[in-house]
């Protein structure tokens, strides 16, 4: 990743955070817009789960990441701590690849 891209991301992320406190002041957004923006992260994060599991360089593949995600899903459902979920997923994939 280039430093230019990194700084562009930082600038964009900051502008989004600052729109309310610095630019907008006390005006309010329509409720529809607020709801849409609040729900927006859900399909994006779900897509990240799917793509990071199935993308094998521009084609869909089923590999060790799938059972690893299954293990992670059970642990998330059982409310395991975040690092435990990650380590279990990595361990599952690593063991299947031995």
């Amino acid at each position, binding site marked *: 990743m280039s430093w230019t891209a990194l700084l562009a991301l930082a600038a964009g992320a900051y502008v989004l955070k*600052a729109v309310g406190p610095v630019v907008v002041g006390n005006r309010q957004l329509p409720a529809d817009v607020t709801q849409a923006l609040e*729900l927006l992260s859900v*399909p*994006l994060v779900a897509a*990240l789960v799917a*793509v990071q599991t199935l993308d094998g360089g521009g084609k869909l593949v089923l590999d*060790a990441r799938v059972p690893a995600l299954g293990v992670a899903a059970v642990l998330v459902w059982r409310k395991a*701590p975040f690092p435990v*979920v990650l380590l279990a997923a990595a361990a599952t994939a690593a063991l299947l690849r031995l």
Partner: protein
Amino acid sequence: MSAPERQAITRRALAIGAATGIYGISFGVLSVAAGLSPAQTCAMSLLVFTGASQFATVGVIAAGGSAAAALAPALLLAARNGVYGLSLVPVLRGRPASRALQAQLVIDESTAMARAQDDPAAAHHAFLATGLSVFLFWNLGTLAGAIAGSGLGDPRRLGLDAMFPAAFLALLAPQLRRPGAPVAAVSGALLATALVPFTQVGVPILFSAFGVIPGLIVLRRAQVAA
């Protein structure tokens, strides 16, 4: 706000920050595994400072995408901070320069803590304490993770690539209780998966944003029914 109330808020803020530090360590490890240098990894946590966008960026780059391909989905994920910022307008007091600095602390945790308070002084203290605590621990965690991650071997052999979807799943799960969220999640995941064979890395994530539409339809119906 009484002194004990103030202390109780500070204690909760520190606990939340410490928990975020663990995520920070994970981010540091994954970012270095994706090929970012430790300096870039730390700079991202200092300057971007919004977890989901940072994980998304290094996730796309780890999958072979360009930084440009990572940028759009990362910024879409950061859009919710804009909503948070708007909802915090009454809480974020001070002169424009001070508010501009405080804006960097507008994230999930600080917003949730501020909104949970009754009076404006408590809300402002909760926002600042939580924001600063998360900022401190997130960056310390990132540094530790980046250093530890540099010593690891082949990311794939260690299964680190499987940590990305697991991390996103853990971030997604608490959001699924809202009406419309499960439909939005399934729609986004299916849309992105369908696009993988036909588009560049990062593009499927971007288009998954359209999954918000069926989610909003379900949400609207739930509100009408209520």
